[in-house]
């Protein structure tokens, strides 16, 4: 957590100028005002050095939220710095050794925009540090501070667009439909668990008229709780990069569709898979899996066989493009 200092271009030029002036001062007879100016320039440099250092000294990282986000889309980060409040810093993340600029913080009391992570490709990356750089106050020196942090940057595939209505128009003939099939939902809430008397609030669509007529009291169908619905998918990772990405996008869309539906999605693939339920935790795990997975060569082992499960990418098209 050491603050590193080095002169900026302006500072280096200023230093050269100062040296030249000092040489001129020494070469000629003593001159009071010339001396005053040299003192002034040196003071600006010296205090600038101290203040630039002090600006970042003691800054700590309280919190870094790097939420999972879709590939190719910028996302806002949550960043909270503690200790002293630095001014005019630019914030960057060290992601797998690469420096990613995420924005500036002015620190002058005005509203600060949240740091914005630029669009990234689908990957599971490690954030090793938050790098703060600042040339405040005079721009003569640049201070750099790396705040170590261990966080995972999950960039999951962007969910495929959901456009059943005009898919024909939008697609060219060579496009296959991996991204367009919705999650099968025919069974959703359809299983009838039994009959029970009508209670206020029950839907009239659920009325079992026959039983009502038989018993003389309103009877409704009681439906199976929806949470038990599950959908199995098999992802074959042996396919070209582009098709693989499309399949992942399609999976991502299915994952998004799970939210609030009470269903679950089980994905089988080579080297494991994931189970996504309608909760945040399993969704995060699924996103992480989708971010990290890679395509396999055609010679690799096939995915496990699951009876009745849909296959992705569709085998019919796989041969054509493979």
């Amino acid at each position: 957590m050491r603050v590193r200092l080095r002169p900026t271009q302006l500072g280096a030029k200023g230093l050269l100028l100062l040296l030249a002036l000092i040489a001129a001062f020494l070469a000629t007879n003593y001159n009071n005002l010339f001396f005053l100016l040299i003192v002034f320039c040196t003071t600006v440099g010296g205090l600038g050095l101290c203040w630039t250092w002090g600006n970042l000294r003691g800054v700590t990282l309280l919190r870094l939220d790097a939420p999972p986000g879709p590939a190719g889309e910028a996302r806002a980060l949550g960043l909270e710095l503690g200790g002293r409040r630095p001014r005019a810093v630019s914030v960057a993340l060290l992601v797998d050794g690469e420096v990613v600029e995420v924005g500036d913080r002015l620190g002058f009391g005005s509203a600060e925009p949240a740091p914005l992570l630029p669009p990234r490709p689908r990957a599971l990356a490690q954030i090793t540090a938050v790098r703060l750089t600042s040339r405040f106050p005079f721009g003569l020196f640049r201070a750099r501070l790396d705040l170590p942090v261990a966080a995972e940057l999950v960039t999951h595939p962007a969910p495929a667009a959901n456009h059943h209505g005009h898919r024909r128009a939008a697609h060219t003939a060579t496009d296959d439909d991996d991204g367009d099939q919705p999650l099968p939902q025919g069974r959703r809430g359809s299983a009838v668990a039994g009959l029970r008397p009508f209670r206020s609030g029950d839907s009239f669509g659920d009325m079992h008229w026959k039983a009502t007529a038989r018993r003389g009291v309103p009877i409704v169908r009681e439906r199976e709780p929806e949470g038990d619905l599950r959908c199995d998918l098999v992802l074959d990772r042996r396919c070209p990069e582009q098709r693989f990405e499309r399949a992942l996008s399609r999976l991502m869309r299915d994952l998004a569709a799970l939210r609030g539906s009470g269903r679950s999605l089980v994905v089988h693939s080579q080297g494991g898979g994931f189970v996504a339920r309608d909760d945040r935790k399993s969704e995060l795990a699924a996103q992480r899996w989708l971010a990290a997975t890679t395509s396999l060569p055609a010679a690799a082992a096939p995915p496990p066989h699951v009876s009745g499960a849909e296959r992705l990418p569709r085998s019919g098209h796989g041969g054509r493009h493979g």
Partner: protein
Amino acid sequence: MAECLLPLLLLLTGLDLAFVHATGAVDLRLLLPMLVLTAAAPWLRHLQRHFTYRLLWNGGVLIAFALIVQHATTTGLVHMLEDGLALAVLCQVHLLNNVGARQRPDLVFFNSLLVAFVTSLFAPDLTWSLLFVLHALVLVPSLELHAVTRGQSCLTRAAARAVVRGSLPHAVAVVLATAIVFVVWPRDFQRRGWFNELLEATQQFASGAAERIDLEHENGAPLSDAVVAQLVPPSGRAEDVPSHWRSTAFSTFDGAAWLPQDASELGSRFATDPAWERDRSGAWVRSLAETGLRRVRVRLLDGSQRRLPSPLQARRVDLQQAAGLLVDPRSYGGLGLLRLADAPAGALEYTVECSAARVVVAPGARARQHMTALPSSGVPPFVHDLAAQLRRDLPAPDDQLSLALAARDWLSEHRRYALPGTPGFAQNLGEFLIGTAPGHCEYFATALALLLRSSGVPCRLVGGYLAHEWSAADRAMLVRGRDAHAWVEAWLPDGEWLTLDATPPADVLADSRPTNSWWGGVVADLELMWATVTGFDAGQRARWLAALVRFPQEHALAVASLLVAAWAVVYLRRRRRTLFVVQQLHRAARNAGMQLRDGETPRELLGRAVLSAATPARLAALRAAALAHERARYMKPGDREP
């Protein structure tokens, strides 16, 4: 570059123009268009998109550049300073108008500093210093804003204002730190640079008296407002201070310049003045009648003086601090001063005793000849005509005294006085003598000397200071750089040296600042103050430190009461902010060796105290304090009294 930086850059450039204007070297007619261009920069920037505008602008700058260079090369070195400074501000205005996406403001900052550096060599101290403070207060915020905006693509108005507001304390801190370092840093006022020494080694006169009065040169070093010396009469009366204080005597005129007497004699010496001798007390004395003695204490603030200014009738000069100083008694009429390496820098004090007697030295033939010599060329023929005319008008044509007085009166009545730099100022002696252009004291003195020598009256030109500004506050006569003066000393046939000042006295006084107005007084005080700062040397530092150490001993009571008052203020402020019960609680906790932690309630503290090693009495006191606090703070107001 962010737009918000532009106003600060405008200010910076404006200050650079002011710096240049303060030197007085560059004509206002040249500076005003630049000022207009600076002020118009925000609007001109919008035109930069157009090719025609850029063509016109760059062409105009090139033409101006060429004109200045042409002027410098054709007029010789005389206008070097003027042209250089004009070039510098032209560059600054050009840079300002080109600052944009491709041209970063770095160069504007650097050039502005360079202008400040160059002008520091020529401008009057106080004006320059005030401008410098303003300059610093603008430069630091602009640097800061620049540093902030380089990361930030755009800055709202409010944010920019916040940045500038936040930078002002930095600017003030920088200025204060600069002032402190400037004053405290040991400065060697006498340091000689190798460059100057190299220059002087190539010159003819290595005797340390390189001063010369060059009439063709438009007085390169402008007259500064800095106080050079303070003349303190022990009587406290202004009329006890002689008006003319001589530094250097010039006896040879080469047609364009006057050369100092000791430099022009070329080794052969002849008696012109009573000789200085050292008496047993170490003071310098010379044989003058002890009649009407007046004493004046001189405080020479200007450390660069190489003479001890003294009146013609000086009889005794007593230098208080002689260490490291070498007095040269052969400097004609006055005393030369050489500072050795170990000399204390800065101000020095000496006492001058003046006699009211005439200064009489029997003139020798060689001396006479030397003092009446005229150059073969460079003397306008008008001088001889005028001298003949004056002699004709005299009742007794051979009376040298009346001739001298007539010539002096004629000049002061018929010629106008003006300071160099004013419009129409005489470019050479001819212009002045013919009467078409006004001139300053050197022209008057030279004209008078030439008139006298043309008529065979031996005389010399004297450079020094005219003491006329009485400061009632200091009970002293203030002598400034701008009070530098030149006059003539005529050597009458009976051997008396007579001071003749042809410059109309009213004009000299009118041209200097009116010191009796309140404004003049303020300026004078400021200048004195600034002179103390710039002249703050090792001796003064030692005196200040000694006074600082002595102060608590001598004023123990005052210091003690000051400390008590400060403590009381701090205590009362803190006390007003905290309630009594809370104070009591803190005190009881302290007594028990405890301290209230963050997020801890008094009861929890009490619980901790019970487990600690506090004595029962302290514990009981803490318990009582906690209970009292609880009752006062948490109970219903009606229930508080038990």
